[in-house]
């Protein structure tokens, strides 16, 4: 069996950093723990450099259970960018909230390792293990703010629901294995392409169960019930990490497994996926409008965005997949940035997450308010920001694939979402009151994270071509 270690490199780099951070944590003093964040960033940067150097490679290893292609590398870049932003924005936050720093950073890195494995997995078993590594790390990250009851509650809910969803996923994998005789995606797709009479019916049940598992992980309606509570309760940087990286990882695996290897079943997916997409967009947006807390609103908004992403999966083909990848890249900075701004507003150990707390922010912190406005406008899909280009391509792909109705519903939903995104901006610039005095998380690193996210939002909106090109080459590496 071939066992080249090069395809393991990006994941191994992050894993190694996680282990170093975890072990070093034992030996250094309380006040020197800041060093751990820098080591994490260094490891992530190295991983990013490796991913850039390896761009264009297409190598399978360990019997093709892990496949390092542009698709995996594209997602790897998203994961490590988000992980790095998370580390940056939590450097001060973890101190003030009494979260154990060493474990916090190493768990972020462990979760990132799991995501990288998920994106590169070419075998249902490897994918599942990557997913679990990520999920377990994120369950714990959710509950790491020990003195906050909400955080513990969120971790508990997330864990129970997640474990249940894992059951569905695993049973689906077992049935698919039973039907096709392999967990390797190459062999599964070879089996499905064989000209033959009929597939065993439990293959479809397996696929359906897989769909339920994925639906849970990306937070698609009706598997979204955990999202608001968990996103609200988790420490805010972790929420940002979850809303972006975890979702991206689930979509990465979804795209690889369902769109490519199981594509012979496309006609059978179409209907449930369409229903899922429409329900997710609409219900996410409708519920987001009535939320009193910005953090909860963003949670519902992330559900709605999962709905837009599902359009990309329904559309399929080259355009659908490319725009799915591109949309994830455009969705990432705006969503993460919005959560970073909420992190910034935290005062003592009281989170300030309601609309009211944003009142007058435009006068007190003009730059933060400007960044937040950018994020909101981008999420709503105003040109010339990242969100616009993302939505433009995803709706276009739907029209190209003949799903005009989906595109129309998507556009209507975007209009609906303007209501609550603009409400934040209105609050910031047209109201008085809100948070008084200095926020206690006045960290230059947090500002850097917000600034980077804002820059990315503008960049992807104004100059999207290069990233779009990357998305296309990532997608075409699947074939």
């Amino acid at each position, binding site marked *: 069996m071939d066992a080249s270690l090069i395809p393991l490199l990006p994941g191994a780099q992050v894993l190694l950093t996680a282990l170093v951070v975890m072990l070093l944590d034992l030996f250094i003093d309380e006040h020197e723990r800041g060093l751990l964040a820098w080591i994490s960033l260094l490891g992530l940067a190295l991983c990013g450099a490796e991913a850039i150097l390896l761009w264009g490679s297409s190598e399978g290893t360990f019997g093709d259970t892990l496949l390092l292609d542009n698709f995996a590398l594209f997602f790897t870049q998203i994961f490590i960018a988000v992980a790095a932003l998370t580390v940056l924005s939590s450097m001060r936050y973890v101190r003030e909230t009494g979260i154990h720093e060493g474990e916090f950073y190493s768990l972020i890195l462990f979760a990132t390792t799991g995501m990288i*494995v998920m994106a590169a997995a070419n075998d249902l078993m490897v994918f599942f293990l990557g997913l679990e590594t990520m999920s377990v790390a994120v369950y*714990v990250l959710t509950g790491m703010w020990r003195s906050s009851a909400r955080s513990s509650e969120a971790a508990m809910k997330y864990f129970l629901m997640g474990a249940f969803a894992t059951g569905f996923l695993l049973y689906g994998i077992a049935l698919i294995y039973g039907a096709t005789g392999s967990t390797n995606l190459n062999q599964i797709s070879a*089996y499905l392409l064989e000209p033959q009479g009929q597939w065993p*019916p439990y293959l479809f049940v397996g696929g359906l169960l897989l769909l339920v598992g994925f639906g849970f992980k990306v937070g698609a309606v009706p598997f979204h019930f955990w999202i608001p509570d968990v996103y609200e309760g988790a420490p805010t940087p972790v929420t940002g990490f979850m809303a972006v990286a975890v979702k991206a990882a689930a979509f990465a695996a979804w795209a690889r497994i369902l769109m490519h290897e199981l594509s012979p079943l496309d006609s059978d997916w179409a209907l449930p996926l369409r229903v899922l997409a429409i329900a997710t967009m609409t219900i996410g947006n409708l519920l987001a409008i009535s939320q009193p807390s910005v953090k909860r609103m963003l949670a519902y908004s992330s559900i709605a965005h999962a709905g837009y992403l599902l359009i990309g999966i329904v559309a399929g083909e080259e355009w659908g997949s490319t725009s799915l990848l591109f949309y994830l890249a455009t969705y990432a900075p705006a969503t993460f940035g919005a959560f970073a701004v909420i992190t910034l507003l935290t005062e003592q150990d009281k989170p300030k997450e309601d609309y009211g707390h944003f009142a007058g922010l435009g006068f007190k912190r003009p730059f933060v308010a400007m960044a937040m406005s950018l994020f909101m406008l981008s999420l709503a899909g105003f040109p010339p920001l990242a969100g616009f280009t993302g939505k433009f391509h995803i709706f276009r792909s739907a029209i190209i694939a003949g799903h005009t109705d989906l595109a129309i519903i998507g556009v209507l939903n975007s209009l609906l979402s303007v209501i609550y995104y603009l409400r934040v901006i209105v609050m910031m610039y047209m109201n008085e009151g809100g948070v008084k005095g200095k926020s206690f998380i006045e960290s230059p690193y947090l500002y850097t994270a917000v600034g980077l996210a804002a820059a990315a939002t503008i960049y992807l909106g104004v100059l999207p071509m290069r990233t779009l090109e990357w998305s296309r080459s990532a997608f075409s590496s699947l074939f």
Partner: protein
Amino acid sequence: MNGAQVGFFILAGLLIVSSLWVVFQRNVVHSAMALVAALFLVAILFLTLNAPMVGVLQILVYAGAIMVLFLFVIMFLNPIGLEQRRRLWWGFGALAGLLLAGALVPVLTNGDAPRDPVVATELFGGPEELARSLFTDFVLPFEIASILLLVAIVGAVVLAKREP
């Protein structure tokens, strides 16, 4: 029906009974013990399928370790208040379960045999065969699983550590 089939149906029947007992029993400790019995029966099923290693590990890991921790927690928390159930959810759960069963049973019984069913040889399922495939074909999943366990350990310690 030959002897092996009779044995299977007896085991399967007992398994179903004990699984139902887990669900319907109001006393938590009784439920837990019924679950132990169910796991034990599954282990015996594995033994009859010529997979002694999996069977014994099933007892060792699930019945012997995980369920003991279950009992440990039950004894610590003594969850007497959980014994009341709300009827509405009861009905809802039963309905959902029946729907799922109704969808699964026809589908699962109405298929061809799995592709390339593995033929159980004398060595199949023994420790040597298992170890060989674990360290050759499945070495990558094996290593990733060890990362997963490490993460779980770190997580458990972080969440359970006494605050200073």
